């Protein structure tokens, strides 16, 4: 039985939330909060239903014809539901955080309206059943994030928005060209098709490679792969919840997820290996991993350091995809989830330091662990996860990536993994050291740049609890990785589906 309403309703919850928020007046703060939370919770419940349906073996599909030969398809398959689960969970956390963060700020209606649109697009990307539908939501994501990036309205924010658009719209055009070429060659090609594009290999090898380059090139801009990453550090001027969402699920992950879709569900892994594109992709991802880490070390401020760390971390996903073999795939998919959880924690904490104590630079962080213990604990969990220490979630993915590299006989990838873990340690451990082991204003030495006491706890509750929650989940994802429905379990299910159809 096909429950076509399910993917559609899941998509519609945040779309309706956006429409209602836009039609409410700016002052209706309380109603807006209710709508936001209600929609976020409803979406999580719907995604849970979808997870249940997928694990029972259904693939609920909603589709209608747009023009001849092109359909709009939403399909809840295992890979899509995985990404949908991540985005809906983090949407709830980020919404709670944003409500606290923007207390008393201007233009909240615009912010939450576009925030909901942004999540709608992300969910649409997750559930797209073919490349055309994917493209629709991918471009919607570009448009709906622009107002969030320039939210502050300062000259710097507007300049960042301009750079962001230059990169993403150009990438969108490249992607569009690739999609049109592919449709001209193969007509509508569903992600659910078992076959991949291998029937076209003999006659159109060059064209297939070109299309692959266009598609992945367009997607790599959002995935911030070097040298197409220039927009990401600049976009850091956005408010903290936006940065969190951009880095953890929305934009960066949309690019990585698109690459996953192209390789697994469009071309098929065998064909990609046959074309030789995966090796190129693995090299590009490795360069990005190392380069991002090196640049992160050079940053003196907290948010830019996290931004370059994202550039490096997201390419783990791409690296895992380009390793031929189930272990690499499991590592890539699990990292998509784990990195999201850990990164969102780190950005929440960075926002908390900035809001509560006015901390932006690294050298201002001395002793902050005493003043804000829970936030600092959460930050430490995230940082250790990024380095890949057990028992955090980050360890699991690095382990599987390493296994995948050995399985694929690509030993240099292991070297890249080791090098990047070392670099991660070099730029994260000093921060952890400063937080806990240096003496600072909390010990009576000097004072915080701009201290505000926002709440009874170490900071405003709406800011604190989301960070703690995501930190707990990211430890849980590592400790309980063996349980059913853990990120690793679901990633394994998807990978098995890819390799043993």
């Amino acid at each position, binding site marked *: 039985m096909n429950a076509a309403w399910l993917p559609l309703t899941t998509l519609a919850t945040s779309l309706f939330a956006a429409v209602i928020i*836009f039609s409410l007046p700016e002052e209706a703060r309380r109603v807006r909060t209710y709508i936001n939370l209600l929609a976020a919770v409803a979406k999580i419940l719907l995604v849970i239903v979808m997870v249940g349906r997928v694990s029972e073996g259904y693939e609920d599909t909603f589709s209608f014809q747009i*023009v001849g030969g092109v359909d709009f398809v939403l399909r809840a398959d295992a890979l899509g539901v995985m990404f949908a689960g991540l985005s809906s969970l983090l949407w709830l956390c980020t919404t709670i955080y944003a409500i606290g963060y923007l207390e008393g700020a201007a233009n909240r209606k615009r912010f939450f309206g576009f925030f909901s649109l942004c999540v709608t697009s992300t969910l649409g990307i997750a559930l797209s059943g073919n490349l055309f539908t994917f493209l629709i939501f991918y471009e919607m994501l570009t448009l709906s994030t622009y107002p969030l990036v320039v939210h502050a309205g300062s000259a710097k924010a507007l300049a960042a928005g*301009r750079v962001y658009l230059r990169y993403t*719209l150009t990438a969108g*055009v490249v992607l569009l060209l690739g999609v049109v070429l592919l*449709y001209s060659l193969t007509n509508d090609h569903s992600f659910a098709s078992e076959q991949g594009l291998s029937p076209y290999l003999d006659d159109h090898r060059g064209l297939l490679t070109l299309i692959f380059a266009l598609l992945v090139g367009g997607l790599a801009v959002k995935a911030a792969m070097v040298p197409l990453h220039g927009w990401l550090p600049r976009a850091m001027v956005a408010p903290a919840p936006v940065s969190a969402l951009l880095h953890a699920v929305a934009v960066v992950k949309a690019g990585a997820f698109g690459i996953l879709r192209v390789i697994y569900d469009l071309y098929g892994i065998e064909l990609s290996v046959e074309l030789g594109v995966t090796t190129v992709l693995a090299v590009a991802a490795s360069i990005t991993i190392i380069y991002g880490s090196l640049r992160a070390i050079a940053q003196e401020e907290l948010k830019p350091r996290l931004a370059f760390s994202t550039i490096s971390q997201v390419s783990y996903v791409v690296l895992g995809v380009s390793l031929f073999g189930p272990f690499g795939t499991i590592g890539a998919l699990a990292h998509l989830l784990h990195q999201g959880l850990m990164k969102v924690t780190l950005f929440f904490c960075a926002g908390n330091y900035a809001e509560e104590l006015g901390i932006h630079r690294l050298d201002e962080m001395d002793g902050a662990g005493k003043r804000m213990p829970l936030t600092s604990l959460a930050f430490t969990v995230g940082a250790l996860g990024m380095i890949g220490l057990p028992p955090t979630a980050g360890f699991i993915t690095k382990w599987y990536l390493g296994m995948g590299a050995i399985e694929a006989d690509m030993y240099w990838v292991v070297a890249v993994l080791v090098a990047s873990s070392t670099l991660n340690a070099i730029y994260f451990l000093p921060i952890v050291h400063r937080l806990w082991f240096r003496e600072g204003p909390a010990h009576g030495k000097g004072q915080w740049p701009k201290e505000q006491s926002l709440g009874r706890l170490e900071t405003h509750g709406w800011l604190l609890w989301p960070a703690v929650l995501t930190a707990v989940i990211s430890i849980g994802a590592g400790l309980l990785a063996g349980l059913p429905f853990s990120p690793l379990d679901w990633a394994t299910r998807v990978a098995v589906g890819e390799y043993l159809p």
Partner: protein
Amino acid sequence: MIWRFGLYDNTFDPLWMTDWALAAVLLLPMVFGALGAVFRPSRLLPVALACLPILLAGGVMVLDYQQVGLLRWQWEVAGIELTLRLSGLSALMLLITQWTAAAVAVYTPGYLRLTLPNASVRWLWPLMGLLVSALSLIWLAADLLILYAALESMGLAAVGMLLLSGKSAALQAGMRYLLLALVGSLAFLLGVALLMSQWGTLDLIALEARVEPEPLTWVAAALIGAGLALKAALFPLHGWLTPVHENAWTPVSALHAALVIKASLYILMMLWGILLPETLFAPRLVAWLGMLAIVWGGLVAWRADSLKTLIASSTVGQLGYLMVAFPLVLGPNIAPLPLSLAWDGFWLHLMGHALAKAAMFMAAGNLIIATGESSLKALAGTSRRLPLSLLIFGMAAVTLMGLPPSAGFTAKWLLLQSMVLTQQWLAVAALLAGTLLTAAYVFRVFRYSFDETAPRHDYQPLAPGMDAVALCLAVAAFALGLLAHFPLGLLHGGGA
């Protein structure tokens, strides 16, 4: 090619109800326009009530077309046969015209109340009525005489409306437009006269059967083409467009950019389809000019200082997309699949642009009324106070940029696919570059509006419904993109 315009003999007699609907479609706009001059409605409701029967009549005609098939009306007046026919394309154009014009009409009372225009305002309604009637007649006409008469009345009504604002700059621009429109009409008339003298018929089907490729036909086609290109503001004959829109009232600009110039383009496509079947050079030339138009229109809009200049220049660029599609629709040796893709894309883009451009002019008009200035700089900080107008502007802009989910995107998709299949890579590049150029000038507007450091000043509140109408048009442009299957089904012959 020509059958796509419904120009073939296999027709049906209309039902009696359709006759009345036809009369209503053609006459009621003029009747209500005249009544508008007498009563001068200042509220939205009476205007909406007046639009209702016209829209209903249009709906009846479309339904009958779907049930019966290609409809034909024929009269003999003083020895001359006059023919009208309702094809799927005419039905679609009729619907777009009526609904866009109704939206503009509903927008107008609020606009007039807020801008307190001069006494000549009473002429607006009859001219608008005449314009809508003439447009409807153009979509239905199947002989050159009616076509010419309708084109002339449309042109004169348009000039009259553009002159109404009474500013000296508007008079100057309007007179120039009048002069050029007359030159265009003369060229068109000359072409028609040549055809009449050579082939002895004004009926389009008969003409199609008799016409032969010879120099005289080509001269006639060139004259008609030049005349219509001038009226449609096709690059490089677009110079009159910007000053005219700069000074006109918002509803007039909206109607003009959305519908009037499209009518000339429609006639051009139809007549060239008859006169120049399977030719290489003329459509190719148009396509080359179209590529230049996309770039030029985009660049001028990018550099524009005033909101209305920006929108008017964007029209030039958007028409470029349509021009680029000419060789795909008219050219020789186009396989059936790319031809049908290009055909769908052409009309979808035309309709999407009509809706979006009208919405954009209205949103811009609202912004100009509210801020009291027409420059882009005056928009600084408006995102806080006028979010809805800006949102509508943005939604219309999405259609113009050709980003999903809009009619502009679906149309661009169809055109791109057709171009890829026929391997016209230069046209592909032009279309994609157009997207980026459009984004460049659209987001310039938003950069100003998001500026939070701008000083505050008081904004004039808008009349009720002014934003809502524009929003409906912008949403319609979105819906047209996602549900393109239904209108395009009508285009493919529907019942026939």
